[in-house]
């Protein structure tokens, strides 16, 4: 696939309009990008065509084709509608309307229903077909999913998104038990409508594991893509009509992916007219949310008032403070305010997760000569066909990178390597060509060296590294026995004629053969499986675009600086596009804007963290602050993009800018700081109000602006040799459960994953129900929760609560030996 945009440009005509497109694009997407409407129900951009609805029928060069799975060709002439196609489409819509309950009045989807829309669009005002209905019962599939099969039109969008995008693979079609179609219809009705109906009568949707419950991450993306009201959120069901809700475009506050979302609000009830968030929706054709983004929306600080005494105390605290401890769940503007305080009042800034990431980025920059990595997740999703993940528990750390990893397998015929000390059956099953390599703790250096060895252009490597890599290989000879067929000539005498004849026979023979075996110390270091070389050869076949994603394990690592050097070297000497996963929501922004410190001493202000004086958006501090759904501002996400977020809910208390104003450094509004974000770090000097936040029909993201990658000074020094620091005994990994990212998600009522010890099923047998763990001298009694997708002995300890304790406990490593006592 092409690197530059203009390589494969083609021109075609759709309904007489000249459209430019990339080779390999589907007609439907070309039409959409050019503002031409082709009806389509089952197709999802970024996923494979399902061909369930057949309504996207068009005529291309005189042939009837489905625009969702026909690639545009140069010079093609497409007709979107003609009489025959219109009849076909109308028949399809009539069939969809057969036995569909006329309960639009109570249906949650009414008003935003694609079945309603297309029925009207195609002018279906009478019904020509009929069939006996079958009884279909509603079901709850999980804590969030409600399925009403009577409303389901089996477009399979839910199945498609679950397989191709999220990778949970939790849904599939199941037999409906519906009546047989009258075979005479085959001749009398339009043929696509008949084929669609025939399939429709045979299937429904059900959890793919036959238990009636979905085994998934509860991302709710199936709800988002459902064209009808068949799949709805249990919490939202029957609480509001779509048209009553006010949509506020915003940015999800929970992880570094910074997905675009809409908070949908309306008054809480008749007696309480305060706005409440009823649900979160997304542009599901262009962005996929996770469970935290979709269901973790009610984290607002609702009790805040302007408490003047508390405010006066806060001012006093700021004048006295020696340090501010905060986390990365703040806006860029707030980070800049804190940095201003540091400059003006010499207050130290403490933020462990952003600090580690900042140090990693600094080491990376001194080696690579630029501030940020070269990879881009959206590009990866489109083009990459070989992806490597190192140092991140993808399922937990960043759902969107996991979606990228999965989408590469499904859509780009890709392959993937997942290196992590904890095995993950979900990742392992994302595709045929995915290998999970469970290595020992602290072997990431060896892995990165192996990547260099495997992918680097050896001429580009510094001489010492080149030699070092050669030295890591040992060639040994090994004798293997092999069976070959040997031709043996025999003389056979024919009994009847007495003539002798020579016959050639094949006889198996075992021979000894000497072969050369290349054994690499690197492969041994990360315990590559025996057939790793063969697997890799298979994976790498016909691959053209490569990517590496690195995660938080590398930032919190005893050899973090060396790893950063290696990442920089991989980026400059291999074809791999590199991308990093910032640890928390705005860690990248904080790392770029703030000068962070390590040691903490003296009077401390905690902002959503512990401290002598606590500012808190959680409503439990000495002074209230607005949560991220109550304030305007920008966030810097892992796509290297500065994206705006808006206030969905009102906030009645003070904000950080008010404190800044009293201290004499403030601006009129918090968003006036947007323009002041440091240009030297790649930000742009633009007003908040001009930042866009949306997508256009061609899928182009118009949100905020991209950070500019800056050049930095380099100090030429090759990475150090890899070291092995083994850990023995029980090992804990600092990792949050799926859907939990921070105390804000923990506050949301639909997200209930507890603060507990997450372990593999086998480990759970050893540990029992509860364990005691000493954290910094304090005893925590933790429930043992089975995560059935984990494998191995390492346990996961979350940091979404008691985060300062947990960060202090783990220190500069994400893994730590611990002692667990059974309780």
């Amino acid at each position, binding site marked *: 696939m092409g690197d530059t945009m203009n390589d494969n440009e083609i021109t075609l005509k759709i309904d007489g309009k000249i459209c430019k497109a990339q080779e390999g694009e589907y007609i439907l997407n070309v039409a959409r990008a050019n503002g031409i409407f082709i009806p389509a129900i089952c197709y999802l951009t970024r996923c494979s065509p399902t061909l369930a609805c057949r309504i996207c029928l068009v005529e291309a060069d005189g042939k009837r084709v489905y625009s969702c799975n026909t690639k545009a060709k140069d010079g093609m002439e497409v007709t979107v509608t003609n009489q025959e196609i219109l009849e076909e489409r109308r028949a399809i819509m009539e069939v969809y309307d057969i036995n569909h309950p006329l309960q*639009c*009045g*109570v249906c949650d989807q*009414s008003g935003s229903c694609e079945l309603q829309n297309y029925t009207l669009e195609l002018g279906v*005002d*009478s*019904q*020509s*077909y*009929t*069939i*006996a209905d079958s009884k279909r019962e*509603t079901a709850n599939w999980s804590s969030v999913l409600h399925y009403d099969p009577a409303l389901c039109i089996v477009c399979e969008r839910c199945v498609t998104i679950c397989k191709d995008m999220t990778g949970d693979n939790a849904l599939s079609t199941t037999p409906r038990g519906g*009546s047989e179609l009258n075979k005479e219809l085959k001749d009398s009705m339009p043929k696509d409508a008949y084929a669609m109906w025939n399939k429709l009568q045979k299937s429904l949707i059900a959890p793919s594991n036959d238990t009636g419950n979905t085994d998934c991450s509860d991302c709710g993306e199936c709800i988002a893509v459902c064209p009808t009201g068949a799949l709805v959120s*249990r919490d939202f*069901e*029957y*609480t*509001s*009509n779509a*048209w*009553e809700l006010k949509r506020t475009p915003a940015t999800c506050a929970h992880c570094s992916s910074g997905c675009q979302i809409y908070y949908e609000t309306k*008054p809480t*009830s*008749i*007696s309480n007219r305060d706005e409440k968030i009823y649900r979160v929706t997304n542009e599901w054709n262009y962005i996929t949310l996770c469970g935290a983004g979709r269901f973790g929306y009610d984290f607002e600080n609702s009790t805040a008032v302007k408490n003047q005494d508390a405010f006066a105390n806060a001012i006093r605290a700021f004048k006295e403070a020696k340090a501010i401890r905060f986390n990365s769940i703040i806006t860029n503007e707030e980070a800049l305010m804190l940095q201003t305080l540091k400059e003006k009042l010499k207050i130290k800034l403490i933020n462990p997760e952003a600090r580690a990431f900042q140090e990693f980025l600094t080491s990376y920059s001194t080696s690579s000569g630029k501030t940020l990595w070269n990879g881009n997740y959206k590009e990866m999703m489109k083009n990459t066909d070989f992806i490597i993940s190192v140092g991140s528990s993808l399922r937990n750390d960043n759902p969107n990178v996991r979606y990228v990893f999965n989408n590469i397998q499904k859509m780009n015929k890709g392959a993937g390597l997942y290196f992590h000390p904890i095995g993950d059956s979900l990742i392992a099953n994302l595709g045929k060509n995915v290998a999970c390599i469970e290595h020992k703790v602290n072997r990431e250096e060896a892995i990165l060296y192996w990547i260099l060895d495997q992918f680097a252009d050896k001429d580009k490597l510094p001489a010492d590294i080149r030699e070092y890599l050669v030295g890591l290989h040992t060639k040994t000879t090994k004798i293997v026995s092999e069976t070959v067929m040997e031709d043996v000539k025999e003389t056979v005498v024919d009994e009847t004629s007495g003539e002798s004849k020579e016959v050639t026979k094949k006889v198996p023979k075992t021979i000894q053969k000497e072969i050369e075996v290349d054994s690499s110390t690197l492969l041994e270091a990360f315990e590559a499986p025996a057939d790793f070389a063969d697997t890799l050869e298979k994976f790498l076949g016909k691959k053209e675009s490569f990517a590496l994603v690195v995660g938080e394990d590398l930032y919190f690592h005893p050899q973090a600086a060396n790893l950063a050097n290696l990442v920089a070297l991989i980026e400059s000497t291999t074809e791999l596009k590199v991308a990093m996963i910032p640890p928390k929501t705005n860690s990248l922004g904080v790392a770029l804007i703030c000068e962070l410190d390590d040691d903490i001493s003296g009077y401390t202000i905690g902002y959503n963290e512990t401290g002598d004086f606590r500012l808190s958006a959680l409503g439990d501090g000495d002074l209230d602050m607005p949560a991220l759904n109550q304030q305007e501002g920008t966030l810097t996400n892992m796509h290297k993009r500065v994206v705006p977020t808006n206030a969905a809910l009102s906030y009645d208390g003070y904000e950080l800018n008010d404190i800044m104003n009293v201290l004499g450094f403030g601006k009129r509004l918090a968003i006036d700081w947007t323009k002041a974000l440091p240009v030297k770090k790649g930000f742009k000097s633009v007003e908040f109000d001009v930042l866009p936040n949306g997508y256009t029909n061609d899928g182009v993201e118009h949100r905020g602006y991209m950070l500019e990658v800056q050049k930095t000074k380099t100090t030429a020094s090759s990475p150090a040799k890899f070291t092995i620091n083994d850990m023995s005994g029980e090992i804990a990994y600092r990792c949050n459960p799926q859907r939990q990212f921070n105390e804000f998600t923990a506050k949301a009522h639909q997200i209930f994953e507890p603060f507990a010890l997450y372990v593999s099923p086998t480990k759970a047998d050893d540990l029992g129900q509860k364990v005691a763990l000493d954290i910094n001298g304090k005893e925590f009694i933790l429930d043992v929760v089975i995560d059935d997708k984990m494998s191995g002995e390492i346990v996961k300890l979350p940091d979404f609560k008691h985060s300062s304790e947990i960060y202090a406990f783990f220190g500069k490593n994400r893994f730590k030996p611990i002692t667990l006592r059974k309780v």
Partner: protein
Amino acid sequence: MHEEIIHTENKPKEKQNYVMLDLGKSPEFGLPAFKQVVKRSLNGELFVGLWVTLREMAKTLFMGGKHTTKYPMEKLPISPRYRAIHNMLRLLESGHYRCIGCGLCEKICISNCIAMDTRYDENQRKEVSEYTINFGRCIYCGYCAEVCPELAIVHGGRYETASEQRASFSLFDDMLTPIDMLKQQQEFQGFGSVSPNADAAIKKTPLAY
């Protein structure tokens, strides 16, 4: 430069043909004038008109023909198309309220005075947990009744909207037909009711399987 506008006199072109009636000459003084007065006064024509008055007076006073409505003790029947305080109707068979909580009245209301809360109830149905109309803002346009797919919200005849509290009318239960009055519930004939030719106007869905 401008053109001079020449005004012509607005006079009829031909002479009008007025005809004078020959009424004779009325006497002006003396006996002839007195005679004319007596003749006209005592002719009896006066009593023709006066008789009607007397007859109606007698009817009203003695035969119970009084037309005054003793409002507010008495009220006149009102047209079914009149639009006053809303009624919420019940299903005749089950007695359950008809409202399904579709929210169309809330949406269409041009003075934005209808609000409802709905929820997923224990019977897996959409329950209207609260419903209110702000009658301080309602302009009685009748759109809510017209849009209602269930004929659940209709206009009633309660036109007296004076009260100590506006809220006195506005809750769902205040508007709902009392359950003991279910038998007396009238099918609504006014704005938004089903038209007499509704059956003929729709295309029927085939059911021949």
